[in-house]
């Protein structure tokens, strides 16, 4: 049985996450998969491909369509010593599980003064993508909740290391897999022992003129913008949050201290979102900024269905580049 641990193949994000899950399930038999259509169907978008074949019914628990009680069931298993991964097919279903995630899994540790722990991963897929269904981005509902770690990886290598860390973590983690990124790109991933720490951002591109704080699919969009801007002499720093709750304040503030300009970009709604929180923290820190912070997020409408409509709501490289030119006072230089 060959695995990436020795051969280091280039994997898609989907394959990389599966690779990490497979390694963790082999390593720790308390890791259990709970959710819908996980066996012969192999999960939505083949998100559990090969796991039932290898681990069988003992470890892969198929449920009826009842996300709310299936999630509470995961909590019960976690409280008595299992490490469940609860599969929620798509992010559109996340409001259904708000009670068991926010009020049960995330609350138990604090509410029992540490006596109870819920080492559970809630895994879902969100954001716009070729699948063109279930695109709503509800992550901010959950980043608002105390006790929850929320992860949105932007590339395959991070995704593998982050799912491994999430499975080993002592508290609940919401793990959101971006649908656009799912099968689109390949990347060499780390081996069995490469964990990516939760709660730590990464500099995806270094630059001196402005910081783009972003996560998920928008990291790539920002990198594209940075390439364009480099030709104009503007150097953009791209900070990939990776974990959107808790935020890596240290990394954000350090980057902004260097560039003195802040642009936050995400697919999710701007109102009450992660970008608003980042800007609030930077502003309250007293960081000296050369330009008011800029926020690029979705307007206050649900993500619509038709492609021309929904595409118009996504952050674009051109939009990020324009924001960066504005921030550095270089509008005139725009082509």
């Amino acid at each position, binding site marked *: 049985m060959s695995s990436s641990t020795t051969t280091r193949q280039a994997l898609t994000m989907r394959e990389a996450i599966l690779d990490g899950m497979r390694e963790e399930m082999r390593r720790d038999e308390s890791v*259990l998969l709970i959710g819908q259509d996980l066996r012969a169907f192999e999960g939505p978008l083949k998100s559990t491909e090969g796991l039932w074949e290898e681990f069988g019914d*003992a*470890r892969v*628990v198929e*449920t*009826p369509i*009842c996300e*709310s*009680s*299936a*999630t*509470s*069931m*995961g*909590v*019960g*298993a*976690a*409280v*008595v*010593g*299992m490490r*469940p991964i609860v599969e929620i097919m798509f992010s559109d279903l996340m409001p259904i599980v708000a*009670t*068991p995630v926010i*009020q*049960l899994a995330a*609350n*138990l540790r*604090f*509410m*029992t*003064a*540490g*006596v*109870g*722990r819920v080492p559970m991963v809630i895994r879902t897929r969100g954001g716009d993508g070729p699948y063109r269904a279930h695109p709503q981005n509800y992550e901010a509902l959950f980043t608002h909740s105390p006790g929850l770690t929320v992860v949105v990886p932007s590339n395959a290598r991070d995704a593998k290391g982050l799912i491994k860390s999430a499975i080993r973590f*002592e508290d609940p983690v919401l793990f959101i897999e971006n649908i656009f990124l799912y099968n689109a790109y390949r990347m060499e991933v780390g081996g069995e022992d490469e964990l990516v720490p939760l709660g730590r951002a990464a500099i995806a591109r270094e630059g001196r003129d402005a910081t783009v704080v972003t996560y998920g699919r928008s990291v790539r969009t920002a990198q594209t913008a940075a390439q364009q801007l480099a030709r104009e002499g503007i150097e953009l720093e791209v900070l990939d949050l990776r974990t959107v709750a808790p935020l890596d304040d240290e990394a954000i503030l350090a980057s902004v201290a260097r560039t003195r300009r802040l642009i936050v970009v995400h697919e999710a709604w701007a109102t009450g979102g992660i970008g608003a929180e980042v800007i609030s923290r930077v502003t309250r820190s007293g960081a000296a900024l050369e330009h008011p912070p800029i926020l690029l997020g979705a307007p206050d409408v649900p993500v619509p269905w038709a492609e021309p409509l929904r595409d118009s709501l996504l952050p674009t490289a051109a939009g990020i580049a324009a924001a960066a030119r504005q921030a550095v006072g270089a509008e005139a230089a725009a082509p």
Partner: protein
Amino acid sequence: MNVEDLQAAHRAMLVSRGIERYCVEKTPHWYAGLGEEATVVGTFMSLTREDFASPHYRGSLVIGWLRGRPLADVLACVNQRQGSPTLGRLYGSFAGALDYGVMPYVTMVLGPNLAVAAGAALAFQRRGESRVALASMGDGTTGTGDFHETLNMAASMRVPCVFVCQNNQFSISTSTRSMLACETIADWASRYGMPAERIDGNDVEAVHGAVSAAVARARAGGGPSFVEALTYRHTGHFAADPAVYRSAEEHATWMERDPIARAEARLRELGVADEALARVREQVAEELRGAAEELDARPPLTAADLEREEAPVHV
């Protein structure tokens, strides 16, 4: 039940009533379990200490005591002093006793506690353990989606889980009969393919008998069962609720069916003397007084307690 078990149940019901009265004194907003002692005590006496309990909130404090939690710590759930099991973070009747295998009612939303029990049962099943999980609920909970979802999942997976409905005939002010589209809740549960029966929830022997049989069935690999214990809430939804939505006649009828008086009558039939029963009542009252005094000597919780964290407990 043999006479010793019935005596133990009688004593536990007296403790339960004492705990609930203490809580009512402390706060008129207490969701009192007065009148439902036979259902709660009979149910949770049917488990071993290793089994997992995910109880309904009403009348739940006695469950921790049944499993060995000191009485003063039980009372601390309501009077906000040191030794309070969740350091005052969960309201008393929701606090559970996780270090004694009793799940807190963390959500304060009806329903998830049922699936939590099914999840613990799933873990026991997959690990090949002989432990059983038990969830209790009020009649109001049976109107939720989680009730139907969980019974369906538990039955289809045949997990070792027992469900007990503490049917006190009211969800807050709404009469169960008027709002649930079923003959009995047990009949509803039976349609999910599990043994289900309705029993007299004010008869501690009947409750203990039915729940013990269900626990034994689950432990033997026979899957989940359902017990509906028909009882009555002596107070309104909370102690100060005047309960204008029910008649004085109905209330009086059910007060005559008091579960503790009933157990005492049965003990007399079995040859236990009046003096012995009176002695138990006095002993329990004395224990409660002592616990309350011990508790009053403890310092109150403060904001500094927000920073404290205990070590995790293997449940």
